[in-house]
């Protein structure tokens, strides 16, 4: 028998070549863009219907409108009540999900291939002809108001909301998709109907269909279900699009606290607005993030968790969108070490800009985590369908996934230092703490951020 050689780690060969399945584009007579991909792993089919808009399209006095509209889709269609819709989904074993993102809404339905037509028809009916009954609207609105109340006790949600507001101010990206209590109360069913008719129309939608069938069969399923969807006659005005509105560059405060008396941990957000998803520096920023905080082995987690034991985990990331996106470091630390953890985190952001640039090993590791084993991101029909929807959302070419690996591999350490210096801007960093203000107030004075802005939860 061959014995294991434990004197060194085994060599790892080159990655097997990665091929993304072919994307075939179709346009239905009503203008609906359809993308089909064959995926013959398991007899399953996934539909993703993506429409423009998203939470960034909420009117300034109607925050939460997009999400509430999306929520109304499965609350009844045709002769089916909300309960009937839920039953119909269960009868075909469907997984159903609505995602409200800053720039788009996507509705995803996965079912067995033998139910492909039933699934597609149900999806089309919900998305294009929701009943929008007044009593369902009232019930959902009330549930959302109550949900908001509950979120006041969830530190992550409190931090998310306050941080978006600190970074974006009044910009359309500056609120959570769920909105706030007063905007929800002000909403009417007409608002929802109007939002739906603006957002859900064939000309502004893309349907991605991925499954264990031929392209022609997949297209035919789409056409049978969505062919009768008609473009409304009124034109949609192209104004007020979130990604085209300038975001504030200078934050309102450097340090803010949302008091949470007696909290055992401080929920932290540290960051600022950075750049857009379509930046030519995207690949370099991904590598930068992987070195700094995108992975378990990145600097921020190694420092705060593995070296200091301050936290269960810490990470950084760009919350990409079509418009200017935030760069955020997030973690939750033991109350007693709050100020120290902030100092360590800020130091990591500072030093990668030049005093401690990404090293050779770090670069190799960062690029490997992004590129090697890339194919595992495309195992299921749902993963493939959602990936293609992202191409549409960000105007990326169909060849994008096959070009991704060489693009990341081409990034070098100098480029990472350059984008770190350009897109990480220490004087603009905003630190938000959701935690026990009394317990941490004295220690916060050791930080060079001045008196904190205190925000109510």
């Amino acid at each position, binding site marked *: *028998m*061959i014995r*294991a050689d*434990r004197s060194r*780690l085994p060599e*790892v*060969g*080159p990655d*097997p070549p990665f091929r993304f399945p072919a994307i075939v584009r179709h346009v239905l007579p009503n203008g609906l863009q359809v993308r089909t991909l064959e995926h013959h*792993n*398991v*007899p*399953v089919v996934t539909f993703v219907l993506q429409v423009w808009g998203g939470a960034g399209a909420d009117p300034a006095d109607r925050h939460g409108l997009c999400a509430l509209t999306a929520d109304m889709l499965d609350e009844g269609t045709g002769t089916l009540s*909300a*309960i009937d*819709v839920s*039953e119909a989904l*269960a*009868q*075909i*074993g*469907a997984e159903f999900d609505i995602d409200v993102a800053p720039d788009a809404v996507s509705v995803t339905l*996965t079912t*067995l291939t033998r139910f492909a037509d039933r699934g597609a028809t149900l999806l089309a009916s919900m998305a294009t002809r929701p009943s929008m009954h007044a009593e369902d609207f009232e*019930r959902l609105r*009330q*549930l959302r108001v*109550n949900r908001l*109340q*509950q979120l*006041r*006790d*969830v*530190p992550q949600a409190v931090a998310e909301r306050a941080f978006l507001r600190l970074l974006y101010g009044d910009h359309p990206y500056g609120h959570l998709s769920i909105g706030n209590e007063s905007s929800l109360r002000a909403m009417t069913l007409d608002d929802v109907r109007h939002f739906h008719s603006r957002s859900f129309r064939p000309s502004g939608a893309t349907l991605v269909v991925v499954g264990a069938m031929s392209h022609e069969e997949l297209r035919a399923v789409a056409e049978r279900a969505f062919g009768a969807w008609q473009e409304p006659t009124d034109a949609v005005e192209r104004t007020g699009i979130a990604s085209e509105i300038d975001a504030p560059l200078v934050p309102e405060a450097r340090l803010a606290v949302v008091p949470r008396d*007696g909290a*055992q*941990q401080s929920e932290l957000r540290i960051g600022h607005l950075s750049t857009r998803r379509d930046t030519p520096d995207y690949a370099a920023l991904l590598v930068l993030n992987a070195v700094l905080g995108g*992975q*378990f*082995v990145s600097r921020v987690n190694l420092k705060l*968790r*593995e070296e200091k*034991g*301050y*936290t*269960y985990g810490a990470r950084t990331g760009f919350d990409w969108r079509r418009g200017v996106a935030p760069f955020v470091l997030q973690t*939750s*630390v*033991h109350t007693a070490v709050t100020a120290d953890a902030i100092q360590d985190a800020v130091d990591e952001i500072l030093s990668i800009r030049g005093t401690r640039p990404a090293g050779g090993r770090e670069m190799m*590791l960062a690029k*490997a*985590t992004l*590129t*090697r*084993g890339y*194919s*595992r991101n*495309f*195992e299921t*029909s749902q993963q493939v369908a959602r990936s293609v929807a992202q191409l549409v959302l960000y105007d990326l070419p169909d060849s994008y996934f096959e070009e991704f690996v060489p693009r990341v591999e081409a990034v070098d350490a100098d480029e990472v230092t350059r984008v770190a210096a350009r897109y990480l801007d220490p004087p603009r960093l905003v630190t938000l703490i959701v935690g026990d203000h009394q317990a941490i107030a004295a220690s916060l004075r050791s930080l060079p951020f001045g008196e904190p802005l205190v925000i109510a939860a």
Partner: protein
Amino acid sequence: MDLPFTKHTLDNGLEVLVHEDHHVPVVGVNVWYHVGSKNERQSRTGFAHLFEHLMFEGSEHHNTGYFPPLQQAGAILNGSTNADRTNYWEVVPTSALELALWMESDRMGYLLPALTPARFENQRDVVLNERRQNYENRPYGLAVMAVVAALYPPAHPYHWLTIGAADDIRAMQFEDVQAFFRTYYHPANASLALAGDIDTTAALRLAEKYFSEIPPGPRPEPPNAEASIGREIRLVLEDRVEMPRLYMGWHSPAMFAGGDAEMDLLSDLLANGKASRLYRTLVYERRIALDVSASQGSRELGSFFLLVATAAPGKHLADIAVAIDQEMQRVIEEGPTKSEMERGEAQAEAQFLYRLQTVGGFGGKSDQLNAYNVFRGDPGYFSRDLARYQQATPESLRAAARRWLRFDQRVALSVVPRGQTASALAGSEPVSVS
């Protein structure tokens, strides 16, 4: 529907399972150790989970972090501990399979020489942070702790949750690590599953190469304990929450025992999804609850069925409890409808099929093979597992509901905003958890 595999047992007792799936050029590497928090003792809780953390800190021949070499090869990896088992997995590009086996075998065979008190202390802090973040500082985060503490007597190994008690975690000694490792972390108490873009013969050869040199230990005696409650126990827990929430817990059939699948189906029928009975009554029609859910928490020594509902503003847990009892009574007397049975069967078939889509990670095919192997001694149990759901009948569901969901043998915990114990169910005893 099937999950085919090859099983081979090494001389040291390690069971190796291989499943080929060449759809994507990756392999799921998955190791189960048959140890969880149920192998802990009273006042020494949280150890199995803390130990899982130590498995990522290095082993004798790779005496530094577990993550870097694997991530450098394009792997994703993780591990988890529950009451019954601890699992570890990597999903690697096919070209890195040998590396993953080297790493997994090194920590199975040679962990202790690399463990230092400093690493132990650091991970103890990390776990205390994990506990604060996921339990203490989370609304309703301590509720399930209170439910299991009431369902099981103090010496029963399900009396505590896997995260353990904070005081126990603080009191752990470095010396305990070695004994724990020697007892539970060896080939005869483990199962290795490889699923993905591999050739079965080559995969078995590699498993042999890396794992056969590790000496076996004695197979640990499985813990055994009984629990029952002969009455309804009503408790109230004050928490930093806005809305009162009701938790109802019952003892239920052990994992894979008769009635286990029925209880799972009943959880969906009663409280999962808008078409479920309790959602319809409590949330949709009467609007006295904001949400409702149920689960059959299947475990080796005995399961527990949990029902959770949050009161709508101004509504009372007492009314919710009455409505729940009425629906339960209806299920017990009339059984499920034809359409409920059809729905349950369609969902089971779809869920099992969806489970065949990924080779690795939590719930992937390699994880499932290990689950069936460790808990059933039969990695090929997949199709029989599905059959349990397909063979359920209205009568078997009714019988399970009647047998297990008794009003006079359950724990009813009211979690209420601080200072509002009056909004709990009548007669609730205060309980404190930390």
